[in-house]
């Protein structure tokens, strides 16, 4: 079984695909033959995705999606279905951080992270599920974080959502397995993206000393695991959380 062109004829929806891990996932699925709809929160971000796809010869397009808005989601899916067909691969990648020590955390910092990282996974997955059950085939991959398993001071909101999506995946995997749909979670460790570039140097060094492989991960190293789960090669894996963290946390 080979991964090359293994996603031909499939339509994949990747949220948060303008940069970082989401961009790498979108590009990798596209390189394997999928038609990819990559979403961004702004029109400029969506155009950037479209331009990147065109440059790399990937079928599909960048589109605007606010994952916290049911209306925005309905619009996107209606347009996607008529132009490309219903997505049967969904990668819930869009996410934000609003770090603070819990004693100082504002309700808004809690609520917005829960809404964008966890409730949106519910929202987008539910909206895509009907077409996957009809197709009797589907792949749902949630992007979590090592922080969801090991915890991290200052990220109680973020960690709660990242542990949440893994539990969500296990439950949904049990619900829809009979329809040929797998639901998994990929938990990246310390990956070289804009999200981790903002960390103070001292914290980066402290983190690095805890990684047996001695380096940050590349976004492509997350994307390859997602691609495996999305392909037929990963067809018997469901309800699982796969940690990709250079040994930083071994579960």
């Amino acid at each position, binding site marked *: 079984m080979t991964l090359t062109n293994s996603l031909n004829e499939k339509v994949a929806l990747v949220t948060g695909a303008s940069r970082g891990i989401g961009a790498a996932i979108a590009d990798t699925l596209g390189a394997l033959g999928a038609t990819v709809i990559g979403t961004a929160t702004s029109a400029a971000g969506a155009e950037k995705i479209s331009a990147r796809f065109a440059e790399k010869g990937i079928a599909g397009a960048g589109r605007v999606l606010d994952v916290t808005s049911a209306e925005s989601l309905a619009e996107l899916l209606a347009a996607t279905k008529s132009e490309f067909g219903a997505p049967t691969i969904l990668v819930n990648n869009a996410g934000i951080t609003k770090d603070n020590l819990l004693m100082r955390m504002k309700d808004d910092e809690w609520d917005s992270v829960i809404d964008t990282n966890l409730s949106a996974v519910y929202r987008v997955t539910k909206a895509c599920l*009907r077409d996957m*059950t009809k197709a009797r085939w589907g792949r749902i991959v949630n992007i979590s974080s090592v922080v969801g398993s090991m915890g991290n001071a200052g990220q109680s909101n973020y960690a709660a959502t990242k542990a949440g999506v893994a539990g969500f995946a296990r439950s949904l995997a049990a*619900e*829809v397995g*009979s*329809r040929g749909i797998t639901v998994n979670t990929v938990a990246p460790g310390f990956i070289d993206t804009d999200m981790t570039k903002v960390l103070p140097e001292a914290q980066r060094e402290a983190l690095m000393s805890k990684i047996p492989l001695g380096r940050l991960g590349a976004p492509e190293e997350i994307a390859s695991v997602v691609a495996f789960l999305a392909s037929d090669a990963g067809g018997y894996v469901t309800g699982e959380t796969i940690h990709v963290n250079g040994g930083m946390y071994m579960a």
Partner: protein
Amino acid sequence: MSSIEERVKKIVAEQLGVKEEDVKPEASFVEDLGADSLDTVELVMALEEEFETEIPDEEAEKITTVQLAIDYIKENLG
């Protein structure tokens, strides 16, 4: 244009993967036609699509046989 009975039976047969002649009015989706809980949810969604309507959860729960589905559609869309 097929009758409501025919359209309902066709959808039940398709969704549950059974023969149309086995879809008798008194047949229970779960007991006679082998539906599981996800099948019944999908069946209701398929009926909603076919008849362009929304069936509330509390009503959907009561639709357990072919005849009850036909009755519901007739009463609410007739």
